[in-house]
């Protein structure tokens, strides 16, 4: 037994992931195929937003905040306005709350469809990638029709929303929901709930037990996949969400078991697609006729905010989990003294890093993709043998190859080619 030679290999994954809002580096220590430690280094895309924010006023900050991330652009904007409204005690018209809910759920649909495709790609099912990203175009078109942009719709303003949802938009959205219900969701469910290969590949991969999820404060689908019934829209009784019948989705209602693995996280996302569509329909039924913002002009809002005192916290459930913003007033000026944001990927990354310990290297792409910071943009991985100092550079292609090999062991009929799609992601988000 003593003849077994142990040697650990350190593999840095990263640091540049162009598609992430936070490019990161995972330094993975391996004992053979088994991961024994994961270390994270962040800050490769540090833009100094907090420092810039000290020099902006409340209205200018709206548009800075929106550009933290392309996918969650509405969520950040929404959370920031909630923080400012809480700080200054501003009331929001009911119709504006409904419009916020509708746009928020449309964003959730497009974010979840994107992630379903990315996870499909990570295990070598490129058909899933093409199917779900094709379906995603429909909701992107609607967001463009409402907000004028595919991302960064700039819908929110302090005390309401900037654009109304008109009758033609309502028709388009209801038509889109019919399309998703009848043509997309059956296929998505077939793949992510019933396909034996997908189940064999995603089951028991990247398991985050409930204890670790609670200890590391995991957020969003990552937490709900582990069986924690938390959803900020529900906990916080946010806006009109209680009237829309919001409740946290856990995999229990779909599959009956909760294991906290990648499969469960995908089940939560499929469930939330259904829920988002229901919420949008209910919102259209209940939406009252009302004005859409409290202040007719931005300078009126700024004049009111100049007198504000104290601090406010805004919380919202973004597609990936809880986003939280903090704003403290600087009385007498039109800008805040302090603005700070936290995005859900931050705690989720540390939770998944803890959960990867004991897993195999081939599970890394799918486990990291499952919390939705999309690893498809991992450009290079360098393997350095600590004993000999030899260096071998693995590209994204090699890593994908390893992942596809593992899928082929389960189902030899898979004919995926390990092609890097990193560039596409970067394009989508900008």
């Amino acid at each position, binding site marked *: 037994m003593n003849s077994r030679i142990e040697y650990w290999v350190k593999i840095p994954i990263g640091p540049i992931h162009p598609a992430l809002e936070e490019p990161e580096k995972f330094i993975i220590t391996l004992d053979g195929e088994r991961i024994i430690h994961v270390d994270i*280094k*962040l*800050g490769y895309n*540090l833009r*100094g937003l*907090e*420092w*810039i924010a000290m*020099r902006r006023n409340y209205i200018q900050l709206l548009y800075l905040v929106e550009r933290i991330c392309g996918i969650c652009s509405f969520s950040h904007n929404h959370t920031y306005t909630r923080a400012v*409204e*809480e700080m200054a*005690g*501003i*009331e*929001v018209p*009911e119709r504006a*709350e409904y419009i916020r809910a509708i746009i928020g759920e449309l964003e959730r649909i497009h974010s979840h469809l994107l992630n379903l495709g990315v996870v499909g790609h990570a295990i070598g099912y490129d058909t899933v990638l093409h199917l779900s990203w094709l379906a995603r175009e429909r909701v992107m078109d609607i967001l463009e029709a409402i907000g004028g942009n595919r991302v960064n719709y700039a819908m929110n303003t302090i005390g309401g929303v900037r654009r109304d949802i008109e009758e033609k938009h309502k028709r388009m959205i209801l038509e889109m929901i019919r399309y998703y219900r009848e043509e997309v969701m059956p296929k998505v469910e077939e793949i992510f709930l019933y396909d034996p290969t997908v189940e064999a590949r995603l089951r028991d991969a990247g398991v985050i037990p409930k204890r670790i999820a*609670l*200890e*590391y*404060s995991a957020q969003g689908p990552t937490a709900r996949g582990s069986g*924690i*019934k*938390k959803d900020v829209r*529900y*906990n*916080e*009784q*946010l*806006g*009109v969400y*209680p*009237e829309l019948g919001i409740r*946290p989705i856990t995999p229990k209602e779909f599959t009956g078991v909760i294991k906290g693995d990648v499969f469960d996280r995908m089940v939560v996302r499929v469930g939330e697609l259904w829920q988002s569509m229901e919420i949008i329909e209910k919102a259209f039924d209940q939406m009252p006729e009302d004005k859409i913002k409290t202040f007719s002009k931005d300078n009126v809002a700024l004049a009111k905010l100049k007198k504000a005192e*104290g*601090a*406010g*916290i805004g*919380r919202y459930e973004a597609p990936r989990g*809880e986003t*939280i913003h*903090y704003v*403290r007033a600087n009385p007498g000026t039109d800008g805040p*003294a*302090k603005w*700070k944001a*936290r995005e859900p990927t*931050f*705690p989720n990354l*540390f*939770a998944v890093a803890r959960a990867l310990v004991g897993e195999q290297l081939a599970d890394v792409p799918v486990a990291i993709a499952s919390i939705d910071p999309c690893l498809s943009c991992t450009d290079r991985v360098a393997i350095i043998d600590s004993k000999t100092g030899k260096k071998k550079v693995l590209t994204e292609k090699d890593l994908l190859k390893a992942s596809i090999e593992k899928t082929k062991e389960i189902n030899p009929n898979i004919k995926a080619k390990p092609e890097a799609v990193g560039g596409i992601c970067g394009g989508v988000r900008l």
Partner: protein
Amino acid sequence: MTPEELIKRIKERFEVEIYTSQTKTLHPRERIWIEVSRNDFKELMKYFQEIDPHAQFSIIIGEDRGDHLSATYHLELFCENSPSLSVAVITSCPKEDPKIPSLGDVFPSSVPYERENQEFLGIIFEGIPDPRRLFLPDDFPEGIYPLRLDEKGITPEMVKNAGHPYKIKKEGSK
């Protein structure tokens, strides 16, 4: 547990300043703000974990408040309830002695936030298990904390290409 019960239980054990705020939304949301000295701070946070073993740690907001540095910790208690309890704990330290006890052994998820505040504001978290830098590059100068507003922060000479796009000075122009 209602916010009033929580406030009562905390007031029994700690000498702290507590106030609440409420939003003007359709379902008014109450937040509890607690100001505590750094000596009692760790005991208070341990007490929160006693009240709810599954307390969720959200964020540390470090601020430069002129003569002192403050850190605001946001916690969510009873995270599966609707509404849950939203608690913000504010503690502070003087600039000459910027030390706050670390929560690494109480809430493991607080360590990344402590590392972040340590490098950006120069608050030293005593007993932090992992004091390395997280966001700033390794060759960033020591002793400079970007979000400080005093002489330890970023000086105007260090700033390049920042500001309004139309007002950025081109190289070589006056």
